[in-house]
């Protein structure tokens, strides 16, 4: 008896918790609202199945609990019923999988106009590299990483000379412009995670991974590392600022290029390379 009531209470409690929960995803700040939509569809389908199964159980327990003189039915199988249930499940699964795969194909297809930005991770800080005037990032290599060249940019590659280096500081990105985040790590696995962007990807030493998104809202967003990277994992934070075009350009002007940073320090320069 008690168990039947509790089963009903579990369903009711779960549904009420879902509706009234103050804990919900952060307001989105990227183009990936499709991901939120697919998640919502999945919530509805799975929620309905959960309620149906548990309520059916509660009914059975109530209706068919042991009473003297009653014996159970003898019904080994029912092929038609089993087939129907299988088909219904297959339809429900397809209803979740189809939009999921469709959105995934968008997720992995980077638009041609996307600007490349490199995120550079090491225990336990974030750095960034943006292409300079030429719009291209120079090649880089972990073997080239040193105190003077912290991101391991190839000094012999002309494309790398004008790359903008942001070492252990905030990243700024312009609003409404698609960006392809190229992800590099030089020590262990990391994961560049900004909850409001919905996208994330591991950073693997020895290879360059990526994801893309379009920022849709200005503001300051917190970056967290989402792949266990040692004792500093929980403290590996950073900031991404999404700026209007104007603010972005102002910020960009203040940054230094690879060439500026690696030039021998000169005394009495008219403008210091790095204010």
């Amino acid at each position, binding site marked *: 008896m008690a168990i039947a009531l509790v089963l009903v209470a579990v369903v009711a409690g779960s549904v009420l918790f879902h509706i009234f929960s103050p*804990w919900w995803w952060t307001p989105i700040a990227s183009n990936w609202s499709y991901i939120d939509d697919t998640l919502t569809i999945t919530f509805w389908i799975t929620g309905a199945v959960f309620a149906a199964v548990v309520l059916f159980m509660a009914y059975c327990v109530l209706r068919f609990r*042991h009473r003297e003189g009653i014996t159970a039915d003898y019904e080994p199988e029912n092929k038609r019923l089993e087939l129907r249930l299988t088909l219904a499940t297959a339809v429900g699964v397809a209803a979740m999988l189809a939009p999921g795969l469709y959105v995934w194909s968008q997720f992995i297809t980077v638009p041609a106009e996307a600007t490349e930005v490199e995120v550079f991770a090491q225990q336990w800080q974030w750095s960034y590299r943006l292409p300079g005037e030429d719009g291209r990032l120079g090649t880089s290599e972990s073997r080239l990483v040193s105190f003077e060249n912290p991101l391991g940019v190839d000094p012999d590659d002309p494309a790398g000379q004008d790359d903008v280096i942001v070492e252990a500081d905030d990243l700024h990105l312009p609003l409404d412009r698609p960006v392809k985040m190229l992800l590099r790590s030089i020590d262990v696995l990391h994961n560049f995670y900004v909850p409001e962007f919905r996208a994330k990807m591991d*950073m693997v030493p020895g290879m360059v991974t990526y994801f893309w998104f379009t920022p849709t809202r200005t503001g300051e967003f917190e970056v967290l590392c989402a792949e266990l990277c040692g004792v500093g994992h929980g403290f590996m934070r950073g900031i991404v600022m999404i700026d209007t075009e104007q603010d972005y350009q102002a910020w960009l002007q203040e940054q230094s290029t690879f060439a500026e940073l690696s030039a021998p320090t000169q005394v009495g320069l008219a403008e210091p390379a790095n204010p």
Partner: protein
Amino acid sequence: MVDVTPDGTRGVPQDGTTAVPPAEVADAELYHPHSYWTKYIFSQDAKVIAIQYSGTAIGIGLVALVLSWLMRMQLGFPGVLDFITPETYYQFMTMHGMIMVVYLLTALFLGGFGNYLIPLMVGARDMVFPYVNMLSYWIYMLAVLVLVASFFAPGGPTGAGWTLYPPQAILGGTPGGTSAGIVLMLVSLILFIIGFTMGGLNYVVTVLQGRARGMTLMRMPLTVWGIFTATVMALLAFPALFVASVMMLFDRLLGTSFFMPALVEMGEQLSYGGGSPIMFQHLFWFFGHPEVYIVALPAFGIVSDLISVHARKNIFGYRMMVWAIVIIGALSFVVWAHHMYVSGMHPYFGFFFATTTLIIAVPTALKVYNWVLTLWRGDIHLTLPMLFALAFIVTFVNGGLTGLFLGNVVVDVPLSDTMFVVAHFHMVMGVAPILVIFGAIYHWYPKITGRMLNEAMGQFHFWVTFLGAYLIFFPMHYVGLVGVPRRYPELGETVFIPDSVATLNAFISVTAFVVGFAQIVFLFNMIWSIRHGRDAGGNPWRATTLEWQTPQTPPAHGNWGKDLPVVYRWAYDYSVPGAPQDFIAQNDPGPRGAAPGPVPA
């Protein structure tokens, strides 16, 4: 070959009237042990080995329980215990996960329940290789001791997370990475796999070769089907972990670079180069995903039998249930990379692995339908095993459905590596199988000891565990939805995390302490009832399967006395119309014409 009709027989007449010659395996006096050591310590009796396996697994499981308390202490009340630093937190977390998945769940289901139930349920005297079976346990014991030793080693145990992902696992930024911790962990895993392989081969060969007369494959109880299929899977999956462990051990000790590319650690160039961290992840999950089902399939099988016995009704769709187990087992080998959607592997893999992962939901859902349809028009006795079975269905359905979020590649992207994942896998492969373990212990304890477990303590244990576990893990999904990442010892000041998350975390922690306490009551009950439990008799649940038909309870060495049982029917003849009582034992020849075939046409 699989005999697809439950009616299929091996020289046993359909109506069971003609006399069948009994046992081919005689019970020889020389076979029995005579000293204390050979009887209880270095025993070759599968039942004693089962109890040794279970005792060791539960013992090390208690360590994991305490570790979970310490973690929940830190998450709910950060900074209160000042010995919990990030280092120790990661060590607790890693050891908790590894112990629960490998040293508790795998060992208890296969080494514990497998050893106790397979020979009894298929009507054999013992496992086919009793000596190897004994070795299996002692090597497992050694693996556990090596694991425990890492707690006392300089630098402590590894804190690499139970996934042990390189390069992090063997570098200085991770606890135990450059000290003994990771080495002992890998050695312990290697030992565990060697020990398991010995036991596993035994279980498989016993099921295939040691069955009693008339026990066709399609007459076996689903418990045996679940354990058998899980063991076959484990024999195929564990080697991937074995080679990954050996290779990582080489990377760590010999300076090879299987998983290590060129690295710069804290500004210093390391001598590694050319290896692939992602290759380790593929090997790990090629083991790790089947591992989920290695734990789940025995639970599926056992819960099917619990529901059938206590609802006094045959399991609905037995053949479909068997095929679902086999299909799930096979499919589980082609879904592993759904753990790696955001690992940086080729993005096209996402299409394939999302599709296979969601396909596996179909046979799994079918099993759920058949469990609840078994309740339909049953004669449901709300015994403790039945209550735990019902609780299993609730938590398994809940955890299985959130798997559809995480399996559907693009939905996984925002949720991956958050507390949503932690909530999901605890619900589906932590809470659900453990509820089955409890149900199974309440169910078979009378056979193992001859006494019933105390009902009042059992009721307390059930309600606190079921409702408590649900209250812990259901809200935890929403912590993950907010975006709280997993494996963070403290959240600190994070812009997008509202203060109310801390309140919810404190609630979850307090609930976890209460649920943990209920387990102590359960352990007390297991010990107390050995002496003080109500006398159970041979077949207290009036069940059909062979383990309840032994001449003695607890069954003696050799299980069956002089003659082996002969099987005349499937395991689910409950409430057969026209039968004198509501069950017919599998070895009951039955009156002529009284029992119809279990499956029409």
